[in-house]
């Protein structure tokens, strides 16, 4: 696996405000990295630094082996970037705009036509190619922005909230496009929509108040999501203290008189012992359900945990 992006200890100050704090990560070919975070968490700042639009206050970025500061042209040649607002010259037609972008990125003259045709097909723009960008709907403008980012077939594609303003069908198309691109490129996308990460990414990073608080593969995240909580309903009120003595139980939450939530460690699953214990005590077991944590729960618990620290 070739490493396409290496970001080391990125820090960025806006005045005295530290927007990004010591963020390091790598991206390899064939990975789709989802960047998650609340508004103002530092997603866009990090992406702008990756694409050379902002200079980091400290830290180093290497793109496909080229240092972004020392060899900016070589590094940027391997980069396609869709900012949070698509950078479109609205007075041009789609075709003219893509031609201009192709020239800017130094696409070889004899392959310009093919490159534009391919980008248009991939983003579903063939039918609107001759229309002025200003007259296109927001969704189509977004697609032109994506087309612009993948036009020159860069190794690294950075997409800042690519599915904003798209309708559900378009979102599905763009997600499958991202997965497709992820096969032979490295893709980074930022979003605050959690399902999007689950659907299209292979890796997840959660950034909160400028700090990276989670860096996981999707599989690892899925494992985390299955952990930890059982919901139990009994006919009679259970004795919480006696339940707590069972091995593997970390805490018990009282939902109502007859309903409790048991949090347990990831490694041990005490469901069987709990059931036996309740039946033996004669409380009348009515329900025992594992609660699957949603991505939202993980996100919220991680960001909350962090705030408390």
């Amino acid at each position, binding site marked *: 696996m070739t490493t396409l992006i290496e970001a080391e200890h990125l820090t960025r100050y806006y005045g005295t405000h530290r927007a990004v704090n010591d963020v390091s990560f790598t991206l390899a070919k064939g990975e789709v990295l989802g960047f998650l975070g609340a508004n103002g968490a530092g997603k866009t700042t990090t992406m702008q630094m990756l694409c*050379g639009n902002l200079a980091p206050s400290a830290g180093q970025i290497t793109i496909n082996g080229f240092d972004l500061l020392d060899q900016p042209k070589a590094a940027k040649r391997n980069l396609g*970037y869709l900012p949070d607002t698509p950078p479109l010259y609205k*007075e041009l037609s789609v075709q003219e705009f893509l031609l201009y972008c192709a020239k*800017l990125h130094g696409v070889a003259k004899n392959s310009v036509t093919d490159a534009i045709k391919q980008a248009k097909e991939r983003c579903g723009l063939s039918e609107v190619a001759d229309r002025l960008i200003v007259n296109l709907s927001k969704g189509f403008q977004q697609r032109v922005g994506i087309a612009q980012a993948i036009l020159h077939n860069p190794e690294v594609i950075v997409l800042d909230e690519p599915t904003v303003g798209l309708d559900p069908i378009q979102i599905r198309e763009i997600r499958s496009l991202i997965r497709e691109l992820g096969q032979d490129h490295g893709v980074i996308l930022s979003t605050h929509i959690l399902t999007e990460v689950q659907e299209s990414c292979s890796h997840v990073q959660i950034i909160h108040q400028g700090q990276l608080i989670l860096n996981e593969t999707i599989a690892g995240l899925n494992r985390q999501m299955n952990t930890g909580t059982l919901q139990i309903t009994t006919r009679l009120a259970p004795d919480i203290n006696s339940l707590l003595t069972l091995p593997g139980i970390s805490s018990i939450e009282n939902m109502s008189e007859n309903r409790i939530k048991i949090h347990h460690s990831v490694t041990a699953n005490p469901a069987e012992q709990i059931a036996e214990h309740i039946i033996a005590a004669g409380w009348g077991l009515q329900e025992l359900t594992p609660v699957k944590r949603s991505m939202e729960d993980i996100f919220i618990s991680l960001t909350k945990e962090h705030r408390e620290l």
Partner: protein
Amino acid sequence: MSLILTIASREFRTLFLSPMAWTILAILQFILAFLFLTQIEAFTTLQPKLASIEGAPGLTDIIVPPLFGNAAIILLLVTPLLTMRLICEERRNKTLSLLLSAPLSTIDIILGKYVGILGLMLLIIALTTLMPLSLLCGGELDLGKLFANILALLLLVSAFTAIGLFMSCIAGHPTVAAMATFGVLLLLWILDWTSGLTDQRSELFEYLSILRHFQNIQSGLISSIDVSYFLLFITTFIALSIRSLDNERLQK
């Protein structure tokens, strides 16, 4: 180099996609044609008197310098309007990041923008030059002097454009850029008026005055002092523009 031309040609074409360039060209041509005709009128009334004077100013002297002088004043008003959007608008429309993340240096971006607007300026100068050239149908022109005037106007608008570009880099809003450009240009234009008013002339002000250098070249005296004044002027403001765009990445 080809990248500079790519940016320049888009800039030039975009000007003509909106009514902006067309309007400016039309109005400019109309006003200058009117001034040109008044100048011819003046020449025809003066002609009998001039014939009797030894070493009197000729056709070129009476028509060309006033025409180009007037063109310069009108361009002083027009250039800020043309240059105000160059970088400012890109920043506001967030299209600047397209240029910043493309494999371009800031030098390419600034020079591309500069050359693009200069293309329109060349067109304006060419259209202005056509008027005196039309006199060749029925008379003779001092072509050397005409050339000096063209050169003077070219250097002048190149300097105007360089300031305009710089102001567009530092201003947050196009109107601010236009106002600032206009203010600086007007100040440079009137800077040597002080020398006429008092006994104490300021040589520094005289040297800085853009009008004086322009008129020197216009008179047919192409000296390296005046030419290098303009070249220094242009280089300084282009270098400042490049610096300011570079700074864009560093702080916000």
